[in-house]
């Protein structure tokens, strides 16, 4: 009985400390950037623990709600959300390389322009076939080659289907990058450039931030948002409703404009998974580019020159039809 009480108290203390520590980290971060904006102080002082162990007292006006606060423990982040099985469907017929998804992803994860967890490729299945735009993120494979090879369990598969990375455990061996056949993963070759208040956050596999030098990262399907019932930013940002995100168990997916039955959608539109023959069992389904909403050249013509440069090998194909 006594023992239990002590344990319980211990746990409560632990939770309290943990909460203070996280708030402190966030607050100190925001302190640095909000000082200049001369906020009206409330006179309400809060005691906080700074990252280097000092107790500091600051005005509550400087506390800001941090969207990316890790909401679960690392252990929970490894377990996943019970009862869920996340899935994505990408409608290739509606994509016009608008790249709103790419920027939304970069913004949400505080990643620089060169780092694309989500990217849009131009594919052409065979010489005579029509090319099409192909948004590609991590497929969160059910038989993930990347997870199989990680020597320290830094990249792992959760019960809700997600493949995530603990960038505080990753040793940067890059074996997972060599193993992923879809070139999904990106490496922090140099000290990642990110805002100060992000850098001081506690890293969590569910948020993917802050990025750490010498470690791997990739698309995470934004589980921190899923926990709050929000769609990933790429899904929300797409003007053409290309991405459908949802739960296979509930059999619903939504692109932010409509919510449909997952099984019906993939049946009606003859969905396929990219390179199924590799046996990786992706959790991302593609709807073939039939009856397109936009001509493929549109995505090229509207792109800025840096993006155009990427597709210079297909220039004849894309410009001839102008």
């Amino acid at each position: 009985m006594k023992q239990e009480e002590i344990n319980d108290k211990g746990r409560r203390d632990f939770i309290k400390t943990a909460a203070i520590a996280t708030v402190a980290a966030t607050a100190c971060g925001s302190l640095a950037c909000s000082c200049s904006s001369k906020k009206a102080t409330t006179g309400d002082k809060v005691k906080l623990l700074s990252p280097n162990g000092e107790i500091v007292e600051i005005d509550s006006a400087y506390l800001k709600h941090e969207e990316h606060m890790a909401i679960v423990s690392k252990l929970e982040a490894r377990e996943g959300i019970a009862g869920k099985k996340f899935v994505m469907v990408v409608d290739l017929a509606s994509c016009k390389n608008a790249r709103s998804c790419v920027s939304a992803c970069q913004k949400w994860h505080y990643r620089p322009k060169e780092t694309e967890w989500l990217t849009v490729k131009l594919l052409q299945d065979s010489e005579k076939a029509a090319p099409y735009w192909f948004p590609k993120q991590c497929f969160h494979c059910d038989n993930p080659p990347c997870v199989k090879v990680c020597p320290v369990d830094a990249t792992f598969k959760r019960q809700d289907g997600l493949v995530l990375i603990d960038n505080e455990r990753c040793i940067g061996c890059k074996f997972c990058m060599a193993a992923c056949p879809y070139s999904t993963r990106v490496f922090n070759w140099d000290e990642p450039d990110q805002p100060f208040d992000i850098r001081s956050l506690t890293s969590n596999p569910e948020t993917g931030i802050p990025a750490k030098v010498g470690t791997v990262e990739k698309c995470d399907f934004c589980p921190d948002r899923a926990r709050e019932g929000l769609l990933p930013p790429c899904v929300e940002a797409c003007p053409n409703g290309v991405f459908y995100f949802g739960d296979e168990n509930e059999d619903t997916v939504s692109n932010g404009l409509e919510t449909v039955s997952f099984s019906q959608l993939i049946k009606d539109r003859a969905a396929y998974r990219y390179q199924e023959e590799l046996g990786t069992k992706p959790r991302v389904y593609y709807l073939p580019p039939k009856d397109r909403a936009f001509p493929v050249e549109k995505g090229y013509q509207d792109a800025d020159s840096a993006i155009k440069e990427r597709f210079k090998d297909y220039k004849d194909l894309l410009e001839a039809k102008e």
Partner: protein
Amino acid sequence: MELNTYQQEAFDYQRKNIETYGKRAWGWTVFYVLCILAGLYALYLQIAKGHGVTGMRDNVVWGLFIVNFIFFIGLSYAGAIIAGILHLSKVTWGKPIIRLAQFMTLISVIVGPIFILLCVGRFDRMHHLFIYPRIQSPLTWDVMAVVTFFAGSVLFLYLALIKDFSVYRDAKLNIPKWKQKLYKILALGYRGAASQKRHLLISQNLMAIIMIPLSIVVASILSWIFGMTLRPGWHSTIFGPYFVLGAVYSGCGLLIVAMWFYRKMYKLDYYFTDRHFKYLGYIMLVLAAGYGYFTFSEYFTDWFGSEKWDSELIHKLFSPAEYGWWTFFANFAGIILPIAIVAIPATRKPGPITLVAFIMVIAMWVKRYLIIVPTLETTLLPMQDTRAEYVKYAATWPEWALTIAGIATFLLFFTVMSKFVTVVPVSGLEDTHTQHEQHQLQHEHH
């Protein structure tokens, strides 16, 4: 410990090598240390600025460091297999070269893994390999393999050295006190008593029996780091034996080079005879043929099957605009040349054999590069990247500096070891010369 006259002679002949370090050795040592210092500067840059200073990027995630790792580790496994077989077999001509093979084993298994440390993004977290090991990963297998192998090769070499240490201890060498003391400790009180002799021999045989299959296992595991992925050119069932053979082959070449070098430097013609070059040359020839056969099977199957991904790789490897010339060099200098030189009686001499062996070792390094880099440059999805360094790998100077530093470390170890123990083992030696050789060599020897 008692030596017979032949062994005594071998010892007396070599004692000056371990008594003094010598001007030449000092010169080389300084040179190697300078190379290593340059490497350390490159390492400092890599740590301070990040791995961006290397040529590795998101597509080609592994470069020179992994190539060097495979290269050195291969030499190491080869040394163990060769030394193990020579130890167990009854052929007496092999005894004088066992030690060189064992040197190679131990030194390369020290130098090789350094390159893994250089390659990983966070070597400050290497302990994660031990506190969060994940047994399913081929990399974890490799960590276990290398650690086991390292322990094995230390033991194997040490057991072979105990008798010699007792000889050095008893010989009243003109050396500093600490060195004398060290020999005494390392000799473990070996006096050559019958029971000591027996125990030592049993342990040595046991280690040799363990080391041969162990080398095969660990070389295969090394290959599986690549073979277990789905990449073209890597995902191949023959990768295990292919790597084993490649390792032994390059190791045989380096052994010939080392033999030639020490024969020249320490005038060991009496122990490393022309016959040694000829025999190792034959072994090299057989291995070259085997390696050529594997290489051919690999390329031929991929080319004939002509799957999209594989064809793309084969095209890269053979097109002169990409890796064509390197592929030509690796296969010509790495397979055809050694076969030709050893096969033709007129060139079956220490000089030409050593030269082709040396070129072959370089070709085998290039071959490893061709295994690693072009495959990583062949992605399933088109790269469509405008950043040139992401599309094609080009090693940067810090990578080269660290590579040179690695080679310098390898040679430095060799230099130091050959000043600490005799290059030709003294105690295990038997007179193996043919009448004719004896006649000829005795003449030069004295």
